[in-house]
């Protein structure tokens, strides 16, 4: 397995890690040049310059959607409707198969705090919140201590580094709901409401938390900011082997020899990660399918394993890069039953706001359960396909439903015979095919 030599020139996020991968607390962080980017920014760089640097660096949001961070920032910056504005760090990581934000928070918390400081400086924000997933108790303790340290060293508070500026970071921990990861649902949840997504527009940049201009960035996105400010946008772009700038936390889990997470340049192929870093499949197991970036991404097959990991190449292959934390499925796993598990998750986590999602997902689960028991009705696959259509992009209020049906749709596409073998023999013989959606629950 390849060993990674992490340097500040090549690994903006993880070069801070020490040998044992212990938490890098403020002393060690500062000793290696931590907070220098912020000090540089607060002394010399203007808001516009910071935003332009981020824009030119080509940094895209690392939460899954991949929107340009610089453009997002300039939308907030340009909105002069209120002098109060907020920065929110989305640390509500809950996508099944994803474990990158937790890693960054628990190993290098000050990198995130510094990233938030620079963002707050650029966007003229005085109050920011980290929306942390409630179950991440360890992360919560580490962040609390790191925020305390940053306060002690004068990076937070009412007179930051005696500059007259004031910044505060509040830690808000959630109470368990996947939908809180959706930007507008996150705002609702932070305000103490149900985490139903909000209608857009207005986008959070216009009217977000308590109606004020609000910028929401993912943990990994914000953690990239300090080194971009230190080393410049050109450097950042050149780290990548593809058109997407920079590096990315990428990984493989499932039945591989060495499941884990590594900071790698965009454009590295999935095979390189799987074989060189994750050590390949466990003995005797064959790769059957894989998801490039979390449970809401479409399944790809071994045929796609040489694809470069970048937003465009994965989307050209019919999936999404998502969180880029990939997962393998081996030949012993039945796709119907795996997808049933994934759909149970999405069905449980639907916020219930719109009917196709609230009612469609349990319906999908119930069909998959009967297919799993080889008790499927003749029309079941057709109904599943129709449901995929009714839950597809643009049909529901937020991306939860389209995300939920992506694995299902792609599994039917690539592994149709497994779904077909879930039909009961008697149903094939006795039930006539009937057009249109109908209940399979007689």
């Amino acid at each position, binding site marked *: 397995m390849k060993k990674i030599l992490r340097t500040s020139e090549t690994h903006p996020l993880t070069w801070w890690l020490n040998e044992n991968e212990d938490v890098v607390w403020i002393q060690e962080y500062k000793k290696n040049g931590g907070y220098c980017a912020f000090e540089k920014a607060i002394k010399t760089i203007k808001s516009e310059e910071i935003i332009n640097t981020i824009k030119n660096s080509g940094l895209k949001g690392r939460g899954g959607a991949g929107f340009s961070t610089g453009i997002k920032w300039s939308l907030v910056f340009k909105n002069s409707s209120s002098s109060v504005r907020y920065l929110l760090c989305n640390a509500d990581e809950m996508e099944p198969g994803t474990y990158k934000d937790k890693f960054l928070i628990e190993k290098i918390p000050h990198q995130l705090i510094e990233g938030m400081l620079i963002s707050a400086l650029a966007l003229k924000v005085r109050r920011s919140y980290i929306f942390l997933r*409630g179950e991440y108790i360890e992360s919560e303790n580490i962040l609390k201590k790191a925020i305390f340290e940053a306060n002690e060293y004068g990076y937070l508070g009412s007179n930051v580094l005696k500059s007259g500026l004031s910044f505060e970071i509040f830690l*808000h921990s959630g*109470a368990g709901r*996947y939908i809180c990861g959706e930007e507008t649902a996150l705002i609702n949840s932070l305000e*103490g409401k149900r*985490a139903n997504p909000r209608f857009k527009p207005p986008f959070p940049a216009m009217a977000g938390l308590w109606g004020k201009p609000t910028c929401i960035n993912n943990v990994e996105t914000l953690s990239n900011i300090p080194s971009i400010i230190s080393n410049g946008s050109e450097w950042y772009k050149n780290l990548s082997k593809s058109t997407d700038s920079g590096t990315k936390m990428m990984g493989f*889990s499932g039945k591989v020899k060495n499941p884990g997470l590594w900071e790698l340049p965009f454009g590295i192929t999935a095979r390189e990660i799987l074989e060189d870093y994750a050590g390949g499949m466990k003995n005797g197991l064959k790769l059957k399918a894989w998801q490039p970036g979390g449970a809401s991404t479409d399944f790809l097959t071994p045929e796609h394993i040489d694809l470069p990991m970048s937003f465009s190449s994965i989307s050209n292959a019919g999936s999404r890069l998502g969180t880029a934390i990939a997962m393998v499925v081996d030949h012993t796993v039945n796709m119907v039953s795996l997808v049933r598990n994934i759909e149970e998750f999405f069905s449980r986590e639907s916020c219930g706001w719109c009917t196709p999602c609230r009612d469609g997902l349990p319906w999908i689960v119930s069909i998959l359960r009967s297919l799993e028991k080889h008790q499927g009705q003749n029309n079941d696959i057709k109904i599943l396909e129709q449901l995929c259509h009714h839950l597809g992009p643009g049909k529901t209020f937020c991306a939860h439903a389209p995300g939920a049906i992506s694995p299902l749709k792609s599994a039917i596409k690539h592994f149709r015979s497994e779904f077909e073998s879930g039909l009961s023999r008697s149903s094939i013989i006795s039930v006539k095919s009937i057009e249109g959606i109908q209940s399979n629950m007689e």
Partner: protein
Amino acid sequence: MLKETLDNDFILSNEEKTEILNKKNDYEDARASSIEALKIVQKKRGWISKKAIYEIAKILDISASDLEEIATFYSQIFRRPVGRNIIRYCDSVVCYMYDCEKIRHFLENHLNIIIGETTKDLRFTLLPICCLGNCDKAPTIMINDTIFSRVTLKSIVKLLELHK
């Protein structure tokens, strides 16, 4: 088994009140501290009773039905008494491939309860949870505040023994 009436004489302790009022300062609007307030009270009492909802709503100056709406939406807020130890097993996709369903069956048989229930001696409550961000060390279970990696049926028995 356990009745809500158990909690009729609920009053917020001074400590809880102060903690909640402190949290209120973190936000522009008191409503935003609802989740924290519920968690503060739940920390000591294990669960949130009807009476607790009224008391917390009063101190936050929001309507009880608004708070109720929050309390029923989020999975970490318990509206029924729970056991002293909460066992959550991750049932998301990676843990699924690492046989989390076997873990669930084992726990159900071993504790003689099904998902969502509490053992008669009030020692354990069993709940599912989605991906704990520990997939590279699957399968995963969480007991109270601690995540346990690469668990086996054997190691689970040991873990249970440690939680009285």
